[in-house]
């Protein structure tokens, strides 16, 4: 019962967040960007010599002459049907633009998330409670966290692509082209999650129940994997918002550095060309992904920690 209420609450909250993001994008679209008809007609930056007729036709087609509130209503209506409108520049539906480019980005982000989490797991479980290894690796992890990822990307490219020629320098061909982007995107995540996980493991290993477990004849490995790890996952799950943010932001940087096609590139191009429906679309897709994954991870927290289940918050 508490669980049903929790899900309803979270769903409501998610809808609210998505609506907020949509509204903000809409306001941005209409207040900050000048005359959209000119952007469409000019195909980008400078507008010159577009005849009044063309502008009028564009205004007619996109409905820019109607009162804002009507446009807002129509925008929300389309949104509810999953329609993000037409791109100003690509002469395609925004949904098509995004869906076409989603694949490579998902492969990049998902792979980096799995890699980042996996590396963090190995580092934390392997070194928690072993003072020497611990101080060595936490220094390394701090380094991962504090180095800007474009710099890491360039470094990796220089060494492994230009010098050694192991991986392609850019492009979207196959898994080989994903290795360096994955690594670049995963490192800051590995760094943070490993630090947090190790700390959680250590706290768990100091609790009285750890002695109980050993007193039952369990091995130190069993204590770590069957008991302490669950405790260490809780703070990691709490950080999921941060991790997602890093991933989504990182995608843009990585796709630029490695010249990969994907949503990040779509977003960069759209921002440069002031193709505001596409920008809005990317923002909304990112928001939905964020809300859905965050909710799923919060639900997972409640599975891992039974103590939270009785509490509706």
């Amino acid at each position, binding site marked *: *019962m*508490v669980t049903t209420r929790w899900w309803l609450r979270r769903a409501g909250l998610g809808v609210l967040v998505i609506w907020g993001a949509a509204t903000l994008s809409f306001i941005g679209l209409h207040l900050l960007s000048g005359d959209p008809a000119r952007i469409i007609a000019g195909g980008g930056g400078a507008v010159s010599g577009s005849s009044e007729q063309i502008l009028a036709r564009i205004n007619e087609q996109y409905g820019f002459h109607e009162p804002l509130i009507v446009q807002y209503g129509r925008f929300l209506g389309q949104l509810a049907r999953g329609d993000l409108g037409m791109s100003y520049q690509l002469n395609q539906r925004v949904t098509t633009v995004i869906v076409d480019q989603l694949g490579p980005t998902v492969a990049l982000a998902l792979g980096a998330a799995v890699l980042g989490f996996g590396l963090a797991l190995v580092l934390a479980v392997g070194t928690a409670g072993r003072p020497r290894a611990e101080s060595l690796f936490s220094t390394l992890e701090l380094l991962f966290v504090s180095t800007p990822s474009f710099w890491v990307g360039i470094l990796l490219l220089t060494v492994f692509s230009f010098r050694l020629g192991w991986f392609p320098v850019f492009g979207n061909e196959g898994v080989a082209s994903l290795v360096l982007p994955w690594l670049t995107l995963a490192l800051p995540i590995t760094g943070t999650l490993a630090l947090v996980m190790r700390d959680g493991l250590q*706290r768990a290993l*100091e*609790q*009285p*129940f750890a*002695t*109980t*477990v*050993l*007193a*039952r*004849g*369990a*091995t130190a490995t*069993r204590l770590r994997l069957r*008991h302490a790890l*669950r*405790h260490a996952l809780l703070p990691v799950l709490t950080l999921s918002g941060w991790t997602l943010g890093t991933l989504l932001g990182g995608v843009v940087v990585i796709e630029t550095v490695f010249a990969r096609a994907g949503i990040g590139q779509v977003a960069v191009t759209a921002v440069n060309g002031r193709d505001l429906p596409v920008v809005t679309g990317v923002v909304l897709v990112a928001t939905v992904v964020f809300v859905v994954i965050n909710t799923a991870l919060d639900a997972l927290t409640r599975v*891992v*920690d*039974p*103590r939270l289940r*009785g509490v509706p918050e």
Partner: protein
Amino acid sequence: MTPPDALLSVRDLRVRFTTRHGPVDAVRGVSLAVEAGRCLAVVGESGSGKSVTARALIGLAGSNATVDATTMTFEGRSLLSLGERRWRRLRGARIGFVLQDALTSLDPLRRIEDEVAEPLDVHADLGRRERAERVRSLLGDVGIPDPAQRARQYPHELSGGLRQRALIASAIAAGPSLVVADEPTTALDVTIQAQVLDLLADMRDAGTAVLLISHDLTVVARMADHVAVMYAGLVVEEGPAAQVLHEPVHPYTRALLAAAPTLDPRGPAPTQIARLAPPTTGPGCPYRSRCALADARCHGELPALRATGDGPSLARCWHADAAEPLPTPAPRTVGTTTSGRRVVLEVDGVSKRFRVPGGGRRRAVDGVSFSLRAGEALGLVGESGSGKSTIAQIALGMLGPDDGRVLLDGASWSELREPDRRPHRSRIQLIQQDPLSSFDPRFTVERIIGEGLGQPSRRGAAAHRSRVVELLHRVGLDATILDRRGPQLSGGQRQRVAIARALGPEPEILVCDEPVSALDVSIQAQILDLFDTLRRDLGVALLFISHDLGVINRMCERVLVMKDGAIVEEGPVGDVLHTPRHAYTRELLAAVSADPATGRTPVRTGPTSVPEGRPT
């Protein structure tokens, strides 16, 4: 001393910890023997090395520990220089271990069934069905009602008593021949204590050897066949339970027995133990600075453990034979009248309800009113779940009442908004039942106590530190533990650090929620004396919550008896404890009437007869 058929026999056990501040000799030569079907009790004050001894017996003394003994055999095999793999084969399978800190010794993220079955998972390879069945029968064996349902629950959904029994079920799951129980009844209600002890007694009667560690002499008197008294890492007296408890020969044992809180209206005598002296180091008897009989020989040379007079006991004292009477202690001074003083805390018609899982609400506190005067000690007794801690939370302003109000020094308190309340928070401080949960395990003692004093300015740092040291002295600790962390302190040391922290901001009122229930009697006596001093010197008022009527009798002038959220009886301690009017008060009194000197109580509650379902 070692019977030939002893199951476990240890000679001259020594445990040394290597710490950043040099070595700590926690155990300095302990010899023990436990036979099948018998119970050996180890008693002694906090920090005397009881838990370290127990952990050394299963090879878990700690990574910074060096363990050494002349002999250490279990089931006929030597445990000395046993490899890790061999140790694991014993742990959980042949030796079951019930840890101190019972309430935090189960993994909170795993179901009871998985916790109970872990020794089976490790040592036996059972099928799913068989495992589930075994868990159910184990839970039944330890007197947990509704085992099938309980097995699916998590530790936080069980009350303290049920958790303790689940922990015992896990310790005996693989059928060990020896069970080591470290303070198995600390922090439990008297009625539940009795059930847990009966359970251990049943196991002993069924042939299991029990090594019971306790600071509670009532518990020891009920259970033990044989008693070993520890002081400063040494066994100072040992012998048959009746002998040690009735005719103690070592001055420390005698003081320990005299310090046990009782229901005697005169209260227990403040004894020599109550002098706040830690054990003396260096050669000579470690008890010498507290001992009324100490002479030159005691200062120069450590006595050996040897037979005394004609009794079967052994004692480590030069003057054990003399059995000189200890100087009679002065009568206690509690009872100063406070009725004319100003009221510092007024609780007026307070009620509180909580939502319970599955809908509905439970009334935790129901129309409670009382007032507390400056320098007064007011007792609040009742079983767990009767609403005592909720009252404490409301008095502290950490929980708002649904009805009624709380006044602090005549001014509104419960009705204030939090920002208005915060500046006054230091005036009313809490001392908790479970100090471990309130310390960050990585903070040093200095930091824990320092936090209560606010941030030191750069120039004030030295003064800050000296204030921390002063607070430590107040609670009978010294500066050597400033750099220790929570997990490196013994149970009693931790509680004293918590008290020092609460004293930091110089509060007017201390709300003490079971402040001494985790302490052994001698430290209990010291802390209770300390509370007396604070009241007398600083006029601090105490709201003293305890399930221990002996402690309440020792400490308080007035007492409130609580049941199901309401106050059922109230009055001067002497009247309430000696001519109780309410049936519930009489029941509480009956449950504690076991006297350490007279042995086992007549009370025997069937394990399943008490409603025990409520989550805590």
